[in-house]
């Protein structure tokens, strides 16, 4: 079970003076049960790539296969395959539309042809995942909520469709640290329970390092790097820099400490790892 991106290319506004190649021979596989982060600066092709993964765009060359089914085919199988890929766009709270939170989250499952009792079950379980208490929130208007809560409702709407693959385009943009941590905590929980394939598009190396087991780095419409986070942050520093992609703050701090003579081992990609590495280097025993 996987999404297989098979050497796809895509160009916007072909045959005009504004022609722009957005994807150039991009190839990788996202397995179900894998948590992958996609990074790269604005205009590198990340969002165009994401739009190919549930058939919003079809490649001009190459194929996208979901569990072996070509998304560009005009068959019931292709439609069903698109349905298994959930997409959370940037600022998804802008897409809330219904009068109650229940109705908003129910929209997707209802469109999938679920019966009313099944819809309610899906809504309840999605709300539980994003920590919105059903009895308290279901009948309230989504527009009366805080920004972080609105975003959780929007994510619940996608989760309620029980996708096998979840594509998220910068789910933490504009949120404060506490809302961000809560959204990622919930995402982690959903991921662990349902073992979906997750593709997280982010500008935050901290998020990428903490949650994803594998990083994809895009630049100039091409997939430039693909590998485990720690490996890239250890061995591909120069290439990341050339692509103007940052490394996590903890990696930089570890490097500065090492330059000042503290023998930090390895590449601590999170704060917790850095603290352990400092303890070890100083011969301190963490309590």
């Amino acid at each position, binding site marked *: 079970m996987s999404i297989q991106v098979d050497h796809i290319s895509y160009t916007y506004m072909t045959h005009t003076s504004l022609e722009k190649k957005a994807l150039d021979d991009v190839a990788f596989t996202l397995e179900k049960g894998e948590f992958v982060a996609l990074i790269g600066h604005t205009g590198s092709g990340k969002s165009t790539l994401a739009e190919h993964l549930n058939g919003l765009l079809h490649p001009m060359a190459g194929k996208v296969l979901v569990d072996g089914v070509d998304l560009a085919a005009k068959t019931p199988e292709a439609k069903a395959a698109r349905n298994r890929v959930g997409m959370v766009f940037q600022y998804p709270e802008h897409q809330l539309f219904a009068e109650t939170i229940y109705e908003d989250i129910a929209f997707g499952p209802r469109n999938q042809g679920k019966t009313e009792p099944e819809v309610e079950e899906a809504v309840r379980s999605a709300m539980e995942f994003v920590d919105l208490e059903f009895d308290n929130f279901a009948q309230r208007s989504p527009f*009366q909520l805080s920004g972080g809560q609105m975003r959780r409702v929007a994510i619940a709407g996608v989760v309620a469709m029980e996708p096998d693959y979840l594509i998220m385009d910068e789910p933490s943009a*504009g*949120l404060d*640290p*506490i809302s961000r941590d809560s959204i990622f905590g919930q995402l982690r929980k959903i991921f662990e329970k349902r073992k979906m394939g997750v593709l997280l598009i982010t500008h935050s190396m901290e998020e990428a390092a903490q949650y994803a087991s594998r990083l994809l780095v895009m630049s100039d419409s091409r997939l430039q790097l693909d590998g485990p986070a720690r490996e890239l942050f250890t061995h591909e520093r120069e290439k990341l820099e050339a692509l103007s992609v940052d490394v996590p703050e903890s990696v930089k701090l570890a490097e*500065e*400490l090492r330059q000042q003579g503290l023998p930090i081992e390895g590449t601590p990609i999170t*704060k917790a790892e850095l603290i352990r590495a400092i*303890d070890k280097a100083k011969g301190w025993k963490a309590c």
Partner: protein
Amino acid sequence: MEPIIETKNLTHTYVDGQNQEMTALQGIDLSIAPGEFVAIIGTNGSGKSTLARHFNGLLTPTSGHCLVGGLDTAIEENLWTVRQTVGMVFQNPDNQIVAAIVEEDVAFGLENIGVPGPEIRPRVEKALAAVDMLDYAKRAPHRLSGGQKQRVAIAGVLALEPRCIVFDEPTAMLDPRGRKEIVSTVLKLNKEKHITIVYITHKMEEAILADRIIAMEKGRIVLEGTPKEVFTQVDRIRGLGLECPLAAEVANALDKQGHQLPPIITHKELCEALCPSK
């Protein structure tokens, strides 16, 4: 020196969709000196943006006062002067750009306030030069990167020659490269042109650059001080739903293990504390 912005017991209430009276700001007493760089931090809904909107009269206090350059923003005749004193830059550059050519966009505000034609071009050029965008004067804004668009938006405000600019999360929608461009632009405006900066952000690595940090919670100012005074209170900041710079958080964790360290908020300070031989 007279403060450029001063609030006295400023309170702002509004009526929400369910007809309930909500208090967005409660008894804010604040004074910002000319040339100062002040960062305002706080979670979503803590009142940061509501407060900032008082600084150029987009909102006026329900009770208490907000004075800009000594002028009360609640008095309508003062608003022109208030808005020429304090400019605003918002989160989304796309919402702030009105024209199809960069230099026309920057000229828009000048035309609006009736600046004579011959004066417009030099002021537009000066503003674009200050944000390093002069080479893009004839370009179409929608084809620029996020950081470039935001710099055009800043130039549009700068051309009006305000004494103070309020930035409301100007980097929230930008990638790391765009973020760096904006941060260095803001620092340059403050250090070289001596423009007073009020900078709202969730990003602690940006707040740390300010002279003074104000932390808000539920419509009140709950913490205030230099970056070092504020960010060494790691548990307090966490309690507000925010975070501290990495070096401060690491130092705090080591401190809790029983290792005495001096106050630390930067990489350099952590290096010095942990590697005393150098």
